[in-house]
Every structure is written in C-alpha cells, then in structure tokens.
C-alpha cells in the first residue's frame, strides 16, 4: 500500500495547523511555509499522477478497515489529473496573493488557504459518499473565511448569501445521502455501484429521487442554471486571488458529477439516463445566460464571473453526452477553463489595483503598466471566448465534435457558436473601454464639452487607506511576482494548445478507465484481506 495517497490531505492539514499555532504573528514565516507546503503538494500530486498513469486503481484503507465499512481513499487517473490541476493552481495563485499583498489584508489567509486545499484534495481522493460530504464541508468552511478576507460591507453581504446557499446545498446533500443509504444500505461508492446494478427495476423510485437530489447538490457547486445565483456576486466581490482559487472549486462539482454518474449511476443502470436528460438543457441555458452576461456586464468582476458560468455550460454539454469521447473532451475543457478563468480573475484584480479598486467599465485615465496588462487580458479573453489559437478553441471544437451524434445537434451547435460571438463582443467591449479609450480621453472630453454634455467619469481615485478592503498597487509587495503568476497561467493555456495531442491522449485514457468501472470496484471490494470472494 502506498502511503503517499493520503499525503495531499494530511500535508495541508499539518501545515495549516502549524501556521495557526506558531506563525500567527510572523507574515514572512507564514509565506515561506505556506508556499513550501503548496510546492510540496504539487510535487506529491505529480508523483501520484505518474504512479496512477499505469492505469491501475489504488485504494488506501484508512485504519485498514475492510472497504464497505471503513473509509477508503482511492487514486485513479481522473483523481490524479484533478490533484495536479488543483495543486498547480494553488501554487500559482498563492504567488499572486503574496506578490499583490492580498494576504496581509486580514488574518489567517495562509492557514485558510491550506485548509481549502485539504478539502479540495480530499474531495478528489475520497471513495466514500459521506466522506465526500465531509470534505465538501471542509473546503466550504475555509472558503467562507477566504471569501470575506479583508472585509468591507459589500463583501460581507455577498459572503452571507454565499454561506446560506451553500448551507442549503449541504442540507440537500445530506438528504440525498440519507435517501441513497436507505435504498442501498451502503455509502461506499464502489459498493453502492454494485448494489445499484443488482437492484430490480421496479423498486427504483426512491433511488431515482436520490440520484436527482445528488445531481442538484453538484449543480449548486458547479453553478449550473438555475442554481447559479450565488456565483456572480460571490466571485465579483471576493478578493482576486480567492476568486481565482474558486475556479477549481466549481470544478469539484463537475468532478463529482463525472465520478458519480459514470460509476454509481451509469447510463445503462436502473436510473437510466434521467440525469443526462436533465443536464443537457440546463447546460445549454447556463451557456446562454453566462455569455449574455459577458455581453451585457458593466463590471469587469461580473464579466469574468459570468464567463466562468458560460464555460461551465460548455463543459457540462460535453459531460451530459456521457460517452467516452465526450468525457475526454470535457476533461480537456476542464483544465482549459480552470486556467482561463483563474487568469481572468487575476487580471481583473491587477486592473482594480491600478484603478483605485473599482472595476466598472467606465472611462478612466490610462492605468499603470497598461500595455502589458492589456496583452495579458487579450490572451485570457481569447482563451475564455474560445477563439483560435489558444486551447479554448480546441476545447470548443472537441465539444462540437462529440455532440454531432445527438438528435439536438443543430440546437447545440448554434447555441455554442452564437454565444461564442456574444463572448467575443463582450470581451472586446470591456477591453476597449479599459485599455483603448483611455488613450482618446482628452478628445472624448473635448467633444463632450463642445456638445454641452457632462464630461465622462473623472480621474482614478487617489491611493486608498492602508486598511481599505480593496488592494492597491502601492501596497503590493512585488508587482513583478503578480505578472509572473498570471504569466504562468497563460503559459499553461499555451502548453494545453501546443501539447494538445498528449493532453488528449491522457484524457482519452482517463475516460476509458471511467467507462470500465469493474477494476475499480474489484480493487476496492475484492482485493483486500477478508474479502467476500
């Protein structure tokens, strides 16, 4: 048994605890330990990914209790991919948080960051449905703290909404688990898959209820319409690096959908395609709502948040086909959209730091480092809107390709293509207001005066107070580091494009493994001491 499987959960827990107990008053020590912890976490994830790439499924029995009774962690290729993605994002965004000085705006930033990573990593690794609930709670508690980091009335209000909607989600999750336990008598995912497959079709009404309730929970987490209301104000009001880290949190919902509905409730099981039938329309509406929001947004934070919703729509369209090819496309798009939305949030935060903390798309004088930030925004917007040459384009092509067999393909194709146009126009307008029009400011003002109209919006506000709840560029520890962090995310997008073929081979292998759950079930239930057979 490889004890490294539990390391991604234990390591952040230990480091977070150490930071809270011993380093509360020493920012430098916190930064060093927290960054070192995240880097080691990335190393461990890469090692586990290498280990899992053999195609075998590894099971870690906590306390060595036999499987349906004890809690198991499991590592397969999908879990390993998500671990690496999460750890990479954590390292890069943490560099940004340190470089921009956001981590000084309140207490316990680094400790909460580590606990957040513990929850995310645990949710990817666990093989037990109730344990999944517990890890969801761990990552949510940490995210509540991170979301209101720095305080301020707007952020606290958005925080209350975020906490309440997630508490309702947790309540639903428990209801779903109770229903499934009452029907199957187990909470281990592999064991549940066996029980569901053996269930006579006439006794499945309660099981269907459970499957749909669970779907709703994951849809809240993934922000699918109509359960997306919490996302725009949460992401737009959260500190920039926190919103960027949240990009991996909505993917926890997607991950859980893929895991549960390929393993426990596959399309040929007794619940049939009930979930896939619900997912497709929801995903299409999500895509439309998100991209129209990008088109109409007047606040850059909201534009970034709504483009995240749009990318989740595209992603879930691919997921809802539930074929090996479509899951492979969805996984490729998952990596792409995580990096792209994180980059967008960080760039929005860079702009906010240089505009006195405001992100409304109104005319303001030219900001500092305008050219470099404009180039980065351009790259991130191209990726998020799905234009060539970056990976968003390839991802969208893949999604279009896998929906060809669907009877609704005309509707799906036209939705994806038309909403892409919306996103392009929306991002183009945001970019021109932020970066292009400031060069014309004097002419526009002169024109307004000539026509007797009031002049457009005034100058950038002066530097904020040091304890203001918005980050200012003059408080930044190292602006270079923030550029390096965003550059690393964009480099990830470029790498996804250049190495598209190896990436697709990897996601194909993952999808193949997902659609053959027998080795997984065997390794959890049969290959153990005191096994049934």
């Amino acid at each position: 048994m490889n004890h490294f499987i539990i390391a991604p959960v234990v390591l952040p827990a230990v480091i977070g605890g150490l930071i809270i107990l011993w380093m509360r008053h020493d920012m430098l020590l916190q930064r060093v330990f927290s960054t070192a912890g995240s880097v080691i976490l990335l190393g461990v994830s890469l090692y586990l990914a290498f280990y899992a790439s053999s195609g075998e499924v590894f099971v870690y029995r906590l306390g060595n209790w036999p499987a349906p009774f004890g809690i198991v962690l499991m590592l397969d290729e999908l879990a390993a991919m998500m671990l690496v993605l999460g750890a990479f994002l954590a390292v890069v965004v943490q560099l940004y948080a340190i470089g921009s000085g956001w981590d000084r705006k309140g207490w316990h930033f680094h400790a909460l960051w580590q606990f957040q990573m513990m929850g995310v990593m645990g949710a990817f690794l666990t093989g037990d449905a109730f344990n999944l609930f517990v890890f969801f709670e761990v990552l949510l508690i940490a995210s509540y703290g991170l979301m209101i980091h720095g305080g301020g009335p707007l952020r606290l209000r958005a925080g209350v909404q975020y906490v309440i909607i997630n508490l309702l989600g947790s309540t639903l999750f428990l209801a779903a688990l109770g229903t499934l336990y009452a029907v199957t008598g187990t909470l281990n995912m592999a064991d549940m898959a066996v029980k569901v497959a053996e269930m006579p079709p006439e006794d499945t009404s309660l099981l269907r209820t459970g499957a749909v309730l669970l779907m709703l929970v994951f849809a809240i987490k993934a922000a699918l319409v109509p359960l997306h209301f919490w996302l725009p104000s949460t992401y737009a009001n959260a500190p920039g690096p926190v919103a960027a880290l949240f990009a991996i949190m909505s993917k926890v919902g997607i991950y859980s959908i893929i895991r549960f509905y390929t393993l426990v409730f596959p399309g040929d099981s007794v619940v049939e395609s009930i979930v896939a039938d619900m997912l497709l329309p929801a995903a299409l509406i999500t895509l439309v709502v998100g991209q129209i929001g990008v088109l109409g947004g007047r606040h850059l934070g909201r534009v970034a948040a709504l483009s995240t919703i749009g990318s989740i729509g595209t992603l879930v369209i691919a997921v809802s086909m539930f074929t090996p090819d479509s899951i492979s496309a969805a996984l490729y798009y998952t990596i792409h959209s995580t990096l792209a939305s994180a980059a967008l949030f960080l760039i929005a935060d860079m702009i906010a730091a240089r505009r006195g903390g405001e992100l409304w798309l109104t005319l303001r004088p030219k900001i500092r480092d305008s050219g470099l930030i404009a180039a980065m925004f351009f790259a991130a917007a191209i990726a998020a809107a799905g234009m060539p040459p970056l990976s968003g384009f390839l991802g969208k092509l893949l999604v279009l390709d896998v929906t060809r067999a669907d009877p609704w393909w005309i509707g799906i194709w036209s939705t994806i293509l038309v909403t892409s146009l919306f996103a392009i126009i929306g991002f183009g307008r945001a970019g021109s207001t932020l970066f292009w029009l400031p060069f014309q400011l004097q002419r526009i003002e002169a024109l307004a005066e000539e026509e007797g109209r009031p002049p457009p919006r005034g100058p950038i506000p002066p530097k904020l107070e040091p304890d203001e709840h918005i980050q200012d560029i003059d408080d930044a520890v190292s602006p270079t580091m923030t550029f390096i962090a965003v550059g690393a995310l964009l480099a990830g997008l470029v790498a996804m494009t250049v190495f598209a073929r190896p990436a697709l081979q990897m996601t194909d292998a993952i999808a193949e493994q997902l659609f053959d759950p027998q080795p997984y079930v065997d390794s959890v239930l049969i290959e153990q001491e005191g096994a049934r057979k």
Partner: protein
Amino acid sequence: MEALVAIAIGAMSAAGVYLVLRLRTFPTVIGMTMMSYAINVFLFASGRLAVNKPPILDPYAEAAVYTDPLPQALTLTAIVISFGMTAVVVLLALGAFIESGDDYIDMPDADRREDGDTE
C-alpha cells in the same frame, strides 16, 4: 410512529423553507436551523425506525436484535457540522449588519450604482 416522524420532518422542512426565503438574515438563520433539524431526523430514520433495540450487536442475546448504527453516526456528524456552520453564518450576518447598517440579504443600491461607491 412512521406517520408522526414523517409529519415532523415535513413540518420542519416547510417552516425552514418559508423562513429561508425571507429577506432578512435572522429569519434565514432560524430557517436554516429548522432545515438541519429536519434533515437530522430524516437521516436518523433512513436506517429504518426501531423501538427498544441497541445500535450494537449483543452476542449474548437470544436472537440478534439491533438497529442500524450507521445513521446514528451520520446524524452525529451532521449535527456537529451544522452547529459549526450555524455559528459561522450568525457571526457573518452580525458582521454584515454592523458594517452595512441593516440586515437585508439582497445587495444594496451601492452594488448596482455605476461608480460603486459605498458612501
């Protein structure tokens, strides 16, 4: 007994949903508490209702009579988590009330205004 438990769960959920849909934080917190009570009773009942049976196997008993212990463990975990979460949401609501001067859940006008000033 089944009918009684079902009615209790239903009544508490209905009250909880009604209160959560209110626009102020205090009723919402109470509603969340009601919902979590309802869910705890529901989880408890998901292992089948039984009277006078211990949640452990007694090797000396004549026939093996016991009730499923797992839902009790789940309920215990759920109670602890919902206590913690209620504390978080109460403190957060208090913070929002003190910072912004009222306890409405929806966003204030300042969030919609173009310049985003909070004064």
